[in-house]
């Protein structure tokens, strides 16, 4: 605390000057400076819990490119600011050390992972989709036009956004891939 030397701040001295040794005199400088860390957030994003389908509102506090807190949005008429244990663990979901942030590649018959940069991976995947599509293209089936491939399939989770599902269905359908499924079937 500026203006006061360690001696003046020494609780025993403060006790002598009449401060309560069980409360005021015992307080440290750190305690005096305490505030909720959410007050330091640079931005607060209005989000929705990614677990079940109740759709509880979440507020995501970010400071210097780090999520510092995720908690319920009291404005939500659905959740009224409350969250279950999973929703309450959302910050850990997005920040836990076990999260993968690098592309990994396992070559056929390989015994371990290899690194790959994202662009290369995208090109390789595009090559395989194009090739497999051609190799397995089915123009007709039992004499009827089908214009499809049964060589490419997709299984999606149900934590994807509507917009994402839309692009998936649109692209797959244009490619003629029909074995497109998601968690809703499971």
């Amino acid at each position, binding site marked *: 605390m500026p203006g006061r030397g360690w001696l003046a701040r020494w609780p025993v001295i403060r006790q002598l000057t009449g401060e309560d040794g*069980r409360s005021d005199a*015992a307080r*440290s400088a750190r305690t005096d400076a305490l505030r909720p860390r959410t007050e330091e957030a640079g931005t607060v994003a209005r989000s929705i819990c990614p677990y079940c389908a109740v759709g509880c509102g979440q507020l995501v506090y970010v400071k210097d490119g780090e999520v510092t807190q995720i908690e319920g949005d009291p404005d939500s008429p659905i959740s009224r600011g*409350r969250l279950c244990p999973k929703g309450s663990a959302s910050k850990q979901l997005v920040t836990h050390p076990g999260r993968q942030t690098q592309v990994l590649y396992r070559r056929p018959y390989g015994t371990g992972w290899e690194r790959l940069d994202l662009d290369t991976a995208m090109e390789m995947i595009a090559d395989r989709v194009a090739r497999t599509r051609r190799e397995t293209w089915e123009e007709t089936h039992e004499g009827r036009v089908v214009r499809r491939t049964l060589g490419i399939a997709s299984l999606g989770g149900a934590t994807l956004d509507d917009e994402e599902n839309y692009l998936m269905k649109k692209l797959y359908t244009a490619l003629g891939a029909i074995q497109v499924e998601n968690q809703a079937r499971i």
Partner: protein
Amino acid sequence: MAERMGFFTDTSVCIGCKACEVACKEWNQIPDDGFVFEATSYDNTGMLGASTWRHVAFIEQSRPVLAGDDEGVDRWLMSSDVCKHCTHAACLDVCPTGALFRTEFDTVVVQADICNGCGYCVPACPYGVIDRREGDGRAWKCTMCYDRQLGGLEPACAKACPTDSIQFGPLDELRERAEERVTRLRADGNEEARLYGESPGDGVGGAGAFFLLLDEPEVYGLPPDPVVTTRDLPAMWRWAGAAALSAAGAVALAFLGPSRGGGRR
């Protein structure tokens, strides 16, 4: 000092989801408490401790159900335990460094930058709440989210609680609400409903965090009639003083008789 704030945990609406445990850990950045399957109903947390500031207890009670002759669980009690923030707090009384102090909200908080890990608060607590964290060496417990309160926010556990089993607010209001609730439950035939820790007349002068229970406290792992140990401290000092004097007297007695050493003359 601002109005006294507290927790009222109404176990009759607790669904045992443990959101309080997780929300508490997320906010206070508490380490995990180990991954042990306890086989005690759905409770794998065990008890409050240095790294567990909210603990949900699960108690399965069996009676013959409906007309069925075979016994089965018909009552599954769940209750979220927490530091009681006593009016007369033993941990605060015995803390030699002033790390534990009473806040303007009349809650009891450990200052992590002061605590030197003497461990005295641990056996002093009549509820077995506060504990020393191995490796870290300091004592930890619920702060009723002191930092959040300083910003006008409610504690993380109370905010998260899906069914409002954990209520936070001015203690006086909570006590009124609790009285109404217990009266209504009793009226609805729930004879066993009772309040625990709300009475200023109890052994700790009333708890800042009190509970509505549906069975005896010890069933939930709570002491039935806790008393702050320092209530007897004056007596203790008197007995110790007597012992000190007796010791001095006894030693003096032992020196009666002639000096054989030939002291400096």
